[in-house]
């Protein structure tokens, strides 16, 4: 699997940190990297199911490029959305579908990608890919 240089950089940044608390501190900073989905656009369609917090992700294809808007009421979840944004924003639909979610494990953010233990990450990742599939 090859990732964009931007994502690769983040992966390396995270994987250099041992302490889980520090990792989460940095993750929170990524909450600012989302293109924020305005509250009035939070709909049932873009709601991420199976999260404890409320999280929304809207996926569009503009000029054959993925455009993500996201928001969550929990900062760490929005941090994950920020990383997803860096990973996927601007990719072609096919490249976005080719992506696998293991980069989050590589970062040491999640030990596992099972839905019950990935803090909503897996559900968000799957939602994005499912939406893209429906659109192309």
């Amino acid at each position: 699997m090859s990732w964009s240089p931007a994502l690769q950089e983040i992966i390396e940044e995270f994987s250099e940190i041992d302490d889980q608390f520090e990792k989460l501190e940095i993750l929170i900073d990524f909450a600012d990297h989302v293109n924020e989905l305005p509250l009035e656009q939070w709909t049932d369609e873009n709601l991420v199911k199976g999260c404890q917090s409320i999280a929304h992700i809207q996926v569009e294809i503009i000029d054959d490029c993925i455009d993500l808007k996201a928001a969550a009421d929990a900062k760490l979840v929005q941090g994950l959305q920020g990383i997803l944004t860096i990973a996927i924003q601007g990719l072609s639909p096919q490249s976005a579908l080719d992506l696998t979610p293991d980069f989050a494990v590589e970062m040491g953010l999640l030990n596992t990608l099972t839905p019950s233990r990935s803090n909503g990450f897996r559900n968000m990742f799957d939602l994005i890919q499912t939406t893209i599939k429906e659109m192309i």
Partner: protein
Amino acid sequence: MKDQFPILQRKVNGKPLIYLDNAATTQKPQCVIDAMNDYYCNNNSNVHRAVHTLAGEATEAYEECRRLLKSRYNADRVIITSGTTESINLVAHAWARPNLVAGDVIVLSEMEHHSDIVPWQILAKSIAVELRFIPLKDGKLDLEAYKIALDGAKLVCITQTSNVLGTRNPVRSIIELAKEVDAKVLLDSAQAVPHEEIDFKELGADFMAFSAHKMCGPTGIGALLVKPETFNEMDVFMGGGDMIEKVTLAGTTFQTNEHKFEAGTPKIAEGVGWAAALKWFAKIDLASHHKRILNLARITSDYLSKKGMKIHSPLHDGDGAIVSFNHPNIHPEDFARLLDAQGIAVRTGHHCAQPLMERLGVSGTIRASFYIYNDETDVRAFISGVDRVLEVLE
């Protein structure tokens, strides 16, 4: 005490585990783990009606659990179930369904766990009984409202101790008032049994439901204590092996003791594990431990309050050692994950009590719940963990 609990020696995210999710489930001492291990290594067999040695040993080890429960709680009838939830559903099916008719009233409270709400809603849908919920007033049940709700009541189902607030309800008065109108009383004692000695017969309730896993016992097993007169009013619930007297194609007669409600191969290893937990418990002074950890909870609560948190738990004498709280801005999930990163386990969410959440005006709380193996170290670790979370998120 901590050294008897192997899990408390482990590290989480590189930090010593500080386990404050005890209202969800408690940890198990080595002797409980060993008892089940030993059962599987030496005595495993199906129980009842068999003459070989293993079967005899297994039967005896399993039935010891019932004997210990009977003597610990001074109860004549102890039905072994898979937990509090099944115990309450058993009452709904085996007692309420055959004894209640449309229009009869069941009184519940707004602070019930879903396990003491949903079975009654399902029953109400099926036989049109009426459910009345006692509201809260200052974090306590409104007893005046209760008295009014009792009119026409045939059954009162109340949690002895709230799993969210720790509030210990005045079950003595609740039972007395119910008895005045001849209503049966079911106590959801899931959060009470881990913390206090209870004399079921003396208390006078008809049913008492609880789970082993919340009192240092294994998962998958619990009990329903039943007053003998009320036991005689119960109809069969599930059918199968072990609960019958004689089966013919034309019809079947049933056992008359507790086995009548225990269809199929019992929870054998679980019974053995629970028996070990009960024997271990017998050597512990719960009252003084409870006083001690309630104090830990109060110290915690005072600190959180000073730091601007909203505390939902009253922490009166006798209440559970539970601190439910919210930060004015920080999302409970963020709070709990940053604690977890420091090895501290607390629970967040609705704690299976959504109606209570609605009443509190929150979607969920952060809950730190203490148990007999918790000590000052845990409180200090929790407090400094909270400080670190606030540094990052405030």
